[in-house]
């Protein structure tokens, strides 16, 4: 019982962090049709900027300043890079962001060095929020959940309740019509790119000190975010939300469960000869590949993803 509850809480926290990344990715994808390969790199930039700002100003200003700075970088990159690549089609755009992710990782190495930087949780958030049976639930995890839920609500309100959100939603499905009505669609694209990237940076600000801030962090989370987006259905925000939570929870449970394939088979009444390397694998060892297996399964049985609408 204790294990289930604790893992569930941890899984939701991780899943919400994944959603902060995948929501920006989904917005950018459904608007511009371009999959931002460098999305996780902006997550990393968010963490590094937050580290740099928190050294000078402290953690709280960094929470606001770092995403804004990264968003500004995103706007500039869209305006002077991605928009030029757009002329040559989606493959060129995808390759541009691929090259960008490569370059950002090298720039981070160049400026902050190869080793992890000392980006820590602020004193005020260091401690235990509550104790569940015998496990402590840290304040910072609660804070992460608060920030991500707050962001989720703000994003929802922005998209459905404001005039800006209305135009963005319209530009998602009928860019030509919106342009004909006198809105500057390229500028909307630019702002959506900046906004999506800023969301990723916010995830980096609160995730960087909870995990570790090092040049490899983008690659570690990047592919998982793509899996989330494919599983949820390309271009579906609700799908991304469900898939983020699902993968977050599944992975957290898998890491904690130390049962082997043989044990699972026995549960279903199948006796396996526990001699092969396959049968001796535990779920903990399998955890890193579970999301990918999940993705393959979804593709075989439901190619458009959980909630995807389009069949491209």
């Amino acid at each position: 019982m204790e294990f289930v509850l604790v893992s569930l809480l941890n899984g939701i926290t991780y899943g919400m962090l994944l959603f902060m990344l995948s929501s920006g990715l989904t917005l950018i994808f459904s608007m511009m049709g371009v999959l931002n390969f460098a999305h996780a790199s902006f997550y990393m930039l968010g963490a590094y900027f937050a580290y740099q700002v928190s050294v000078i100003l402290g953690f709280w200003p960094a929470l606001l300043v770092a995403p804004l700075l990264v968003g500004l970088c995103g706007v500039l990159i869209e305006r002077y890079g991605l928009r030029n690549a757009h002329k040559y089609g989606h493959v060129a755009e995808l390759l541009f962001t691929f090259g960008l992710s490569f370059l950002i990782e090298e720039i981070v190495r160049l400026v902050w060095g190869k080793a992890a930087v000392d980006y820590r949780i602020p004193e005020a958030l260091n401690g235990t929020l509550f104790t569940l049976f015998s496990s402590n639930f840290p304040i910072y995890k609660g804070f992460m959940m608060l920030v991500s839920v707050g962001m989720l609500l703000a994003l929802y309100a922005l998209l459905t309740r404001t005039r800006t959100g209305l135009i963005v939603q319209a530009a998602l499905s009928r860019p030509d019509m919106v342009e004909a009505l006198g809105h500057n669609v390229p500028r909307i694209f630019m702002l959506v790119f900046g906004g999506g990237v800023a969301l990723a940076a916010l995830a980096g600000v609160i995730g960087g000190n909870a995990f570790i801030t090092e040049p490899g962090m983008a690659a570690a989370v990047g592919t998982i975010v793509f899996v989330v987006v494919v599983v949820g259905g390309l271009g579906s925000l609700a799908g991304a939300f469900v898939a983020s939570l699902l993968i977050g929870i599944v992975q957290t449970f898998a890491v904690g469960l130390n049962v082997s394939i043989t044990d699972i088979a026995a549960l279903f009444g199948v006796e396996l000869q526990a001699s092969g390397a396959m049968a001796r694998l535990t779920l903990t060892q399998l955890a890193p590949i579970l999301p990918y297996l999940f993705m393959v399964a979804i593709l075989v049985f439901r190619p458009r993803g959980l909630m995807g609408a389009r069949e491209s």
Partner: protein
Amino acid sequence: MNCDASPPPLLHPRRLVSWGVLLAVLIVLPLLFSKGFALSLLCQIGIMVIFALSYNMLLGQTGLLSFGHAVYFGIGAFATMHTLNLLGKGGLPLPVTLLPLVGGLAGLLAGVLFGYVSTKRAGTAFAMISLGIGELVASASLMFPALFGGEGGISGNRVVGGAVLGISYGPQIEMYYLIVGWAFISMLAMYALTQTPLGCMANAVRDNPERVQFVGYDPQWVRFMMLVLSGGFAGIAGALSALNYEIVTAETLGAQTSGAVLMMAFVGGVGWFHGPIIGAVLITLLQIALSGLTKAWLFYFGLFFLCIVLYLPGGIASLLSMHQRLWKARLLGWVLPSYVRLALPLTLVACGLIGLVEMAYQRAEAAEIPLRLLGASIDVTLATPWLGALAALCGGLVLLRASWPAVTGAWRRALLRLESREET
């Protein structure tokens, strides 16, 4: 490569001559570069040429952008290594010369398995699925140490059994001729494939899958066939790399290898059959040259790739073919003088950029030691060198912007002239 542009058939006399010349050059090359280092470099280039060409079967010919092509390369390599070790134990009567076939077969089978899943979708979704499958195989490979050797990889010895016809594959030169032989066969086969109905349908699927369905073909089937065949050729390349290095590690399967082959094909030019060959040669040489010169080579590499994506999306092959067209019309003299005006701005940009990057690296690694660059000693703790490099970079960019119209103007005049000549 486009079927509608009616490419010269494979057996056209002019084609035969150029294939013959290529073969002759490949045979003579090691006589000119017989040093150990140059020879192993040539071997590496040969392997990468096959790999990049097999990649272009997907990206250039079928329009499938794959981020996980190393899977087939790696699986071919591991299968070959295991077969080689079986040969060493005397388990199989198979000459080493034919081992690349084993790798090709393994790549082909992997293509059948993963192609079934990934070719269900095209476009961006295919790109992401290939990335996911790449990650899946790469992380799964670390889970089965018996099969993939864990972190250390598995190694073998290619000198097994008796020498067949005096060839033991002990000396590197014999390995070179093995690679060249397989590379030549693979190149011919892949070129021939572009002229088959399947090759033409692949082009059609790339350009307009809907119309392909109208004429009665299944685009998914065409994508699947192309992926399987491309996996086979990647497997041959992997097999040759296993034989050449006598070690295969999990990195062979990983994202870095996939990224490298993507860059090779794209930088060379995916719209031309010979594009990936140019890319493979150039990138392999750059990797060797740059990684010896500077620690920041990956940065320059990424920047170079971005510049190609933004400013030369057809790759180097497109640049060459543009100039070839003018050369044939004897109009090359119209544009070449304008390039001279780019020399100063480009030098300034390069100096400024290299200065900044090298100083940044020095500052991050060891700020107290002065940086040695082009014979000069630079103290990176002072502000002056930073400002100087920044000024050179910005000045160069401004000058480049100012002198760019001269180049485009010269090109426009030359093309106008060419068109008016074609009309008369």
